């Protein structure tokens, strides 16, 4: 019996019940949402189960939705079952006041730097990470640049005139 999105969804609902929600299949990829304290349990289940075998972490990133109060930061995991060639994506939402999510480094060593990058860009605090510090930006940076409220350009540069680019001065949030 080949593994299909239906079987994966059924196994997940059997194990976790109502806690998993928003099952969708955009462009053929099974996507669902899990509560943030269950993220490690879901990944462990998907890793250990003999039929599901999602033992490859393709990607780990985050998205910032400033309009959804209480659920601003979404951490998105892309997993891949290499033997049966099925991918899946699941998301975990957390608020930006207390963005604590359990780390996946014990399970997947590749999550180490991916979580550092997510922390660097969005400020998601991965609980239990061995070395959570900034990786791509300078260590002294005080804000999390990929959040929507921060501008792309460096506001202290003097050689480029923002009004020439059609952008006026920004509100004072930085």
């Amino acid at each position, binding site marked *: 019996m080949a593994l299909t999105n239906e079987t994966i969804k059924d196994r997940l609902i059997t194990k976790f019940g109502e806690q998993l929600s928003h099952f969708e299949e*955009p*462009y053929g*990829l099974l*996507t669902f949402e899990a509560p943030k304290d269950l993220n490690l349990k879901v990944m462990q289940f998907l890793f250990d189960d003999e039929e599901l075998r999602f*033992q*490859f*972490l*393709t*990607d780990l*990133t985050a*998205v*910032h939705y400033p309009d959804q109060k209480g659920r601003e930061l979404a951490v*998105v995991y*892309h997993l891949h079952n*290499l033997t049966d*060639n099925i*991918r899946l*994506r699941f998301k975990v939402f957390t608020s930006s006041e207390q963005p604590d999510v359990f780390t996946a480094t014990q399970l*997947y*060593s*590749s999550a*180490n*730097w*991916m979580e550092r*990058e997510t922390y660097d*860009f969005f400020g998601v605090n991965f609980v239990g990470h061995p070395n959570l510090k*900034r*990786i*791509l*930006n*300078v*260590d*002294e940076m005080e804000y999390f*640049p*990929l959040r929507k409220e921060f501008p*792309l350009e460096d506001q202290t540069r003097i050689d480029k005139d923002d009004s020439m680019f059609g952008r006026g001065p920004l509100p004072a949030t930085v």
Partner: protein
Amino acid sequence: MSTEQHIKLREGSIEKTTTTLNLGPTHPATHGVFQNILELDGERIVSAEQTVGYIHRAFEKLAERRPLYQITTLTDRLNYCSSPINNMGWHLTCEKLLGVKTPKRVDYLRVIIMELSRISDHLICNSVVGVDSGAFTGFLYVMQYRELIYEIYEEVCGSRLTTNMGRIGGFERNFTAAAWEKLEKFMAEYPAVLKEFENLFNRNRIFMERTIGAGPISAERALNYGFTGPNLRAAGVDYDVRVHTPYSSYEDFSFDIPVGSTGDCYDRFLVRNGEMWQSLRIIEQAYRKIQDMKGAEAEVYHADAPEYYLPAKSDVYTKMEALIWHFKIVMGETDIPPGEVYQAVEGGNGELGFYLISDGGRTPYRLHFRRPCFIYYQAYSELTKGAMLSDAIIVMSSLNLIAGEMDA
């Protein structure tokens, strides 16, 4: 911005018996800017700590500012040794989101270009492994054929390195007669060059002794570290995105996946050489298929998607609909469907993934690049534990670390 941050001594450094060596961001061996702080016990490496981010250019934030067709120029600068693969990968992502279906000829032309860029990437990597082990000749000899590949790119899109090639839906112009001539010249001359390159290195005793046993990794550890591409195939796992999730009509081609066993530098070198042979096979098959196309099918170079593909300028000046489409595309009035899509292509280093979330606006809401170099560089400390310093240098160059892709 302090200058001391690059070299950190451990606590109690007077008493420690190991030497700290900073293989700093500027070093002839680091081809690209990333830093390794090595703890050496004599000549053996005890531990290694990596610092990246010296060329962080904020691609993901920059992409939130640009409409979809302008992001192609950003993707060029990811793995700049094989920019057309990144460009095509991005166009495939957009086509998946927008629901554009490309005709077969476009797919085959894309395959030819992607395989040429794969050859170009592996040529740089393998010749630089040669340079790092002391053999400069291979590099000089093989760069001439990279120049020929650059000439083919110039005929197709106008630029050598950061190509910005193609559009969402196909190519901007049909391949010219000169492009086909140069491609035929390449297909005729290159196999002999690759054979000679292999003769220089494959059974060369010095090269073998330098690279065999340097930086081995087992298949389980490689998978856990998220390795993909030639580094994973050298460890024994035959995962190739072109075969497992075919895109751009790769299922129409027959090719093998070269696989190593121990995952050390020698295996990586051989796997890359093997992949170059397979790429040549694919190019020949695609060339044959395109030459066999007749009639109207042989003139097609883009999909029929007027909402996303700019019309020809002569039509814009004469026909009303073309003018309206041109206006809508350039002013950003076209409807981009909201949704999220993940598309992966087999880049020179592995699975290059594009995770695009669109909210219906002109620019993406969030674009994330799954960059293979960033993910597998984490394993460097495990690969070089207990190795000698010269092995560490060879491992770094055989992993094909491209700083632009690592930091994005």
